[in-house]
């Protein structure tokens, strides 16, 4: 979480992007100069199926306010089937977080192809706005790690 001068809440968003589609899609939104907020920080992974639920929880633990996972569209996975596993894993994980009372808008999976620079930017704008509305992540944050 960051608080800037005018005190508007600035969420910290961690985006895991698969190397083949979504990371390339993010690059394309850069190439096309499509803006999205600086709140979003991207971590490159080979495939969305590399993302362990532990990484997502760790991000929340260390102060992320939202975590989004982007991969190739189902059927288009560079590794054939990775995103299908991702889909099941994340559905269950997000459902569990929801069950524990964590705001459901803090987590999201979105399929972004290498051609969808505009979708990437739009998704990030939308997600950042949604998390901004929720305010800082209190329910899952490790207080020791919060930046003062």
């Amino acid at each position, binding site marked *: 979480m960051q608080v800037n001068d005018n005190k508007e809440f600035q969420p910290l968003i961690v985006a895991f992007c698969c190397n083949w589609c979504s990371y390339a899609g993010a690059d394309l939104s850069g190439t096309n100069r499509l803006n999205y907020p600086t709140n979003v920080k991207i971590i490159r992974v080979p495939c969305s199926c590399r993302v362990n*639920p*532990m990484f997502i*929880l*760790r991000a*929340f*633990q260390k102060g992320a306010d939202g975590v989004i996972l982007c991969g190739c569209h*189902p*059927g288009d996975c560079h590794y054939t*089937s990775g995103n*299908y*596993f991702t*889909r*099941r*894993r*994340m*559905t*269950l*994980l*997000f*459902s*569990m*977080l*929801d*069950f*524990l*009372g*964590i*705001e*459901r*808008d803090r*987590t*999201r*999976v979105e399929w972004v192809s290498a051609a969808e620079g505009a979708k990437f930017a739009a998704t990030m704008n939308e997600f950042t706005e949604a998390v901004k509305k929720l305010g800082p992540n209190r*329910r*899952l*944050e*490790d*207080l*020791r790690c919060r930046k003062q």
Partner: protein
Amino acid sequence: MQEAIISKAKQLLADGTVNRVIGWKKGEFAYDITPAIFESAEEIDAEFVYDDFTSANVSKYLVKESKKEGKILAFLKPCDTYSLNQLTKEHRVNRDNIYVVGIPSDGKLDAEKIKAKGITGIIGVERNGDTLKINTIYGEETMPVSEAMSNKCLSCKSKKHVTYDELIGEDGEVIESDRFDMVEKLENMTSQERYDFWKNELSKCIRCNACRNVCPACTCENCVFDNPDSGIQNKAASDSFEENMFHIIRAFHVAGRCTDCGECSRVCPQNIPLHLLNRKFIKDINSLYGEYQAGEDTTSRAPLNDYTQDDCEASIVHERGVE
């Protein structure tokens, strides 16, 4: 029942079918029956117990025991057979080294529930229809059996043995249970209410690891929470988040593998309803990917290691239930 089991054990030891027996013996009190290994008829006669407090699922012990020399005899209640099957499927036990005798179970008692009625000094119980007669050092007490029944047995899902070499008594059926009622009740709460519920429950956790150690699905050679390289290693939680994280990760790691044996909640010294986390996953898996009972067989693909091209999207979590 105890007699039938003991004579079966002695018979199988005597004819050389097995060289060891895993069963139960008394602990410090009449109601803390613990798993034990017997190698001779004498030991069995001296200590073997099977009674209304014999809840413990011995299948996890077979991970180590089945790798030893010779065959071991295991007495398994219906719910325990699911655990063994799941372990067989994951190559964690050597099924060929195990002789399974299926034994019926009409529900086990929870001593804590009896104590909660103010009855102490328990030295034995006797079931008489729906009435439970409790012998204590202070005399005899009675209470309805249903009120003393352990939670895991109250929501029993199956009286059927899914794997056995021999049965004592008749085999039962898979039964309708209300085991998802509480999960559903929580799902129907608001997000804030759920958060408050779990914060209250999970903050009681003392990280004794009993849930993990008893769980027949948690048989990792080296648990991620004990592994300094995993990035999430910790022995004792230093803050509330780590308690959440431990239980989320543990539930996730057994998702699709948990047979819902209920041992985690049974052993929790803080009475945290941990089984609800596992049941939430089971309920989600059943509703999203089709009915699946872990341990029912040894060949099916675990739901998390499987997919279909038209699985639902993760956004379904946003679309259903209470915000």
